[in-house]
């Protein structure tokens, strides 16, 4: 058989072929229109970092110009401390403020003479040690040192005060009653103030 096509038939065949292709394409498109992919879940996590800060607004340097042996010696002015926080009340019960000496046996030193933290007393009338109390407590929540710390306050956290601050006055004394007579000189030390949530 001779399948050769005359020149007059070629345009007709081309049109037919195009129509078939279009028809097939339309069927395929109709089949894909009802297909849905699997839903993908994207977890969104945005963290607001909790804030906890301690600022000594005044009294960062405390001085007793003349110590008296065998007596209670008061520092003349209080240490004014502002504690600020912005925490999640669902995960924070309390904000605690600690005062502590790094080395309790040497709270203040002068030459080879040491005044231990048991001789340094703190008082916060708006906090926990409402009476003068020796700085001999233990760490709280990992803040402080064993035998050289004093918890100044424990502030309960609820919804209304999840973001707040408070200002307290820390009064300090050196109790030399019964302590050996000190040699004349200046005795110096550093009291750390730090807050921790629990």
């Amino acid at each position, binding site marked *: 058989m001779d399948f050769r096509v005359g020149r007059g038939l070629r345009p007709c065949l081309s049109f037919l072929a195009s129509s078939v292709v279009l028809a097939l394409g339309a069927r395929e498109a109709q089949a894909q229109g009802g297909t849905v992919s699997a839903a993908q879940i994207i977890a969104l996590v945005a963290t607001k970092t909790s804030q906890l800060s301690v600022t000594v607004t005044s009294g960062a340097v405390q001085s007793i110009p003349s110590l008296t042996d065998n007596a209670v010696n008061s520092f003349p002015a209080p240490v004014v401390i502002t504690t600020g926080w912005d925490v*999640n009340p669902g995960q924070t019960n309390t904000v605690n403020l600690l005062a502590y000496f790094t080395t309790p046996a040497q709270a203040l030193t002068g030459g080879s003479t040491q005044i231990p933290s048991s001789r340094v007393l703190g008082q916060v009338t708006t906090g926990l040690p409402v009476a003068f109390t020796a700085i001999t407590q233990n760490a709280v*929540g990992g803040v402080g040192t064993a035998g050289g710390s004093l918890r100044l306050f424990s502030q309960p956290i609820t919804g209304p005060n999840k973001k707040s601050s408070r200002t307290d006055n820390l009064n300090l004394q050196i109790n030399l009653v019964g302590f050996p007579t000190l040699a004349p000189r200046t005795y110096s030390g550093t009291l*750390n103030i730090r807050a*921790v*949530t629990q």
Partner: protein
Amino acid sequence: MQRPLNRALAAAALALALASTAQAQVGLTSNTATVTLNATKLSTLTVSPTTATTSIASITDNSLANQFADVGLTTAWNLTAGTSVNLIGWFTTPASALANGAAVIPSSKVEGGINNAGWTAFTGGAVGGVGVAGGSLQLFNQAVAAVNYLGSRTDQLNLRLNLVGFPTTSAGTYTGTLNVQAVVQ
């Protein structure tokens, strides 16, 4: 089949993220603020008499037998330097150590000593700026060094009026003030 798996994975990731956030908030600590403590112990030097007044009930003219009751004196020191602690007794106005109106007894007629070691008139000069010329008496000179920069001593101050050769005194009460002061040299 794939949907539940994806959801489970996503939920697990979310739970993990929240758990780590919760963990971060427990035991949250602040910065550490510091307070500097300075306490200065000054050098001290004190004299403490056991009594503020000592008396002679009845003066005997032209006699040495005019002794006051002894006065205990405790001298205490806590020093960082110096080689001696000196105790000085002195009258502000030597010419009138004691007076009874216009009648006076000069410091040259007042004698002192410590611990019954002898009598000396209050006619010496000042020591280390303490005392007055012609009206002072150095009661002791205590050597000090690092080994005894903290120390004290208690002495008995003996006092008398030496009226031998002195004009007859007027009847009445003669009063005066003896200053006792220590100085480090």
